[in-house]
């Protein structure tokens, strides 16, 4: 088999869903930092979101499985912690999909712009911590629905 191009690998990885927020891919999440061939070995560099995030090891496994299914045999997943992951690395496509899914995308202002369900700007924080390390818990005071906000870090 001819060695797939690095761009091809990026495209394949963009089809690997995040295990906790499956509407976005691991590429959208911005945790895949580099894809590079070193001889016969494909090295994928991953930067974890939160240091204790239980999804991190699942993500590495999912990446490996997806690439193996594409016929790549020799895969090395490298973890890089610096520079630290930041929500600035979320793709625009990813942010759009988050909101469609009901998760308000991160904003430097430190809170959601609007309720992802009804669009109202009348929102309030319930808790700085939510269902996963990357999310906070907010609610809309118009439609009264609670929602997740993807924390800005």
């Amino acid at each position: 088999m001819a060695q797939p191009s690095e761009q091809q690998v990026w495209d394949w990885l963009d089809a690997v869903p995040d295990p906790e927020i499956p509407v976005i891919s691991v590429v959208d999440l911005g945790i895949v930092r580099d894809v590079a061939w070193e001889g016969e070995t494909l090295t994928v560099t991953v930067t974890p979101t939160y240091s204790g995030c239980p999804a991190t090891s699942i993500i590495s496994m999912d990446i490996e499985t997806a690439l193996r299914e594409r016929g790549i045999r020799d895969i090395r997943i490298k973890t890089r912690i610096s520079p630290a992951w930041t929500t600035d690395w979320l793709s625009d496509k990813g942010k759009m999909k988050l909101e469609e899914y009901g998760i308000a995308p991160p904003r430097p202002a430190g809170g959601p712009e609007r309720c992802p369900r009804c669009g109202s700007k009348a929102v309030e924080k319930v808790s700085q911590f939510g269902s996963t390390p990357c999310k906070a818990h907010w609610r809309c005071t118009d439609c009264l629905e609670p929602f997740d906000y993807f924390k800005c870090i």
Partner: protein
Amino acid sequence: MTRDDAFLQFLLRMGDNTLVLGHRVSEWCGHAPVLEEDIALANTALDLIGQTQMWLALAGEVQGDGKSADDLAFLRDAWDFRNALLVEVPNGDFGRTLMRQFLFDSWHKLMLERLKGSSDERVAAIAEKAVKEVTYHVERSRDTVIGLGDGTEESHARMQEALDYLWPYVGELFAGDAVDAEMVAADIAPDPASLRADYDAILAEVMAEATLSIPKSGFAHKGGRDGRMHTEHLGHLLTSMQWLQRAYPGARW
């Protein structure tokens, strides 16, 4: 003491602080007063355990005996732990748990900010990662201390009691020794005493807002950071945390 010996001690101190506190905080899982607090505590514990993995993995690397972070967490006994006594004291009620969290988080954030500039790039990288998480921890523990301190008569009394109980454990965080001197000389970590002025300023501001009085006594319990004398509580904590490896040595999944 060689520089590597001191470096190992320093890394164990960082990693054992987050490990022991992470375990303590995880004891709340399923027991917090409301669901949101339960989730917040679990998330905080998770971050701390994640940071432990980084610190203890580096400790194992520096030690050079091929030990993993798991080996160091689960196969050492109480006298080998280097955490400050503050993090091993039992949780007490919810208020005391959050008071301890605030006292620790405030120190932790100052420490990590300084470690971002460490001459050892592995330390700097861990600090850069961890400080982002700790910023959220302290924001929450601070708000809770203020909310409960300046709350009802009952919550105020309990928070004052918590502060009085925990205060003698604060001093140890800033008490430097030969290990710290070596870290300062190597430009790896700051002198703990140099964090004290900023810490006191933060505490003064927050406790004033929380309508709580900081005890006057400067007495400090010590013996955790150097492992000389832990409290009896650490041993009990370890029997629970290390139970699986003690009962089934080498068990994996």
